[in-house]
């Protein structure tokens, strides 16, 4: 019970600070926007090319943007040593991770859904008929990215060269998510769309495995 109430209080703090400054959301949205627009102008893909390449481009953009978004996740807690205050206050340190990964998932999902219409127009891919499936893929992939990214952010925040370390650790680890979500999205953008259950199952398993690992070992990531 205290895990849930602690998580709720911390999630409220994460949302309040972000919606007050909008630093993370603005940076991430602008980054993805630039990638999508530049790629479209540079290659001017046909409809068939878009169906083949756009899902990969979309998920690469999301992945790189998420490394930007997740960087300050624990770095911000170092500024006034607020992480120590949190560790002294919560009864279960997992609440700190749960709140952060819930907030990061929400921010990523929001960014993805805001940019989806622009992506559909620029790459001429029909998203409306498969929107509910896309939302499912976005959620599963964003959750996986947030779990791994939040954990690695806790590690990299305590290291030297912390700004470089997170992408170096995170991008290779998230390659399976990139591949699976690209494949599922590609199947949804097909001329005869279909749901690739294998990919969706993989994303769900990835999320469960990494969340369990975080629950078991997360406490050690917060220690000095």
């Amino acid at each position, binding site marked *: 019970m205290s895990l849930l109430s602690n998580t709720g209080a911390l999630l409220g703090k994460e949302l*309040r600070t972000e919606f007050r400054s909008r630093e993370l959301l603005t940076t991430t949205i602008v980054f993805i926007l630039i990638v999508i627009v530049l790629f479209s102008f540079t290659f001017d893909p046909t409809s068939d090319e878009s169906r083949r390449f756009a899902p990969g481009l979309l998920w690469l953009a999301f992945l790189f943007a998420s490394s930007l978004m997740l960087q300050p996740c624990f770095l911000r807690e170092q500024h006034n040593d607020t992480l120590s205050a949190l560790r002294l206050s919560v009864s279960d340190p997992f609440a700190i991770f749960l709140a952060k990964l819930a907030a990061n998932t929400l921010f990523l999902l929001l960014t993805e859904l805001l940019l989806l219409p622009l992506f559909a127009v620029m790459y001429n891919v029909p998203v409306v008929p498969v929107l509910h499936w896309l939302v499912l893929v976005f959620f599963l992939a964003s959750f996986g990215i947030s779990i791994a990214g939040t954990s690695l952010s806790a590690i990299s925040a305590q290291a030297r060269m912390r700004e470089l370390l997170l992408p170096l650790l995170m991008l290779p680890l998230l390659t399976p998510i990139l591949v699976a979500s690209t494949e599922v999205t590609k199947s949804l953008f097909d001329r005869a769309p279909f749901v690739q259950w294998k990919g969706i199952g993989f994303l769900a398993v990835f999320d469960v495995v990494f969340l369990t690992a975080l629950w078991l070992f997360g406490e050690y990531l917060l*220690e*000095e």
Partner: protein
Amino acid sequence: MTPPAFSLVGLRFENIDKRYGGLLALRAVSLTIQPGECVVLAGRNGSGKTTLLRIAARLARPSRGTMSFSGQFSGEEAAAIRPGFVAHATMVYDELTAEENLLLFSRLQNVPQPGNRVEALLHEVGLSDRRSSLVRTFSRGMRQRVAIARALLHEPSVLLLDEPATGLDPQGVSWLAEAIRRLRDSGRTILMSLHGESEISSLGTRAIRLDAGSVAADTRTGATFRSILTFADA
């Protein structure tokens, strides 16, 4: 497990070493602090005061030895004891207001009637009229007042203060001394690091000087007490 309601709590450090890479910050520190003692930790910069306080707060794990709380409570209750800690850093969020910070931490610590408690503390630290201002707009002294209020939110049995007067004006120091006196008289165990003699150090019932990570002096008597604070015996 919920922590015990206010009870007399002591601290026991047994043969503590703390190593940061190649640096040995604490060497074989063994100390027993009785419940209700008000201990002043003195020592030069880098002598290990902050490290000892962070180990007492269970924010840092000793490389060797153990730190435990002693008193009339079970092992499970001891594990749930949360000392109030005022550190060098303010440990509050600049992007939140003073009131939002205190409400957040009171909710995390399951403080009963958090609104009333926060209201009372804001009044006590003299920030009632700035409750809705973001902490980043505060001076260093005002931030320190928020930090002290945060540490007192859950009425801790053990209070750990790392140079608590940092940034406070003379009025603030007097207020802090009065607050520490009240806490000491109510039976709280207090361990605080200070530099030199002050209104606050005079509240101590025991003085310990650390030197290069080891206990160099430890006394409860008047003349030696003063010499520890002023390094006259060093």
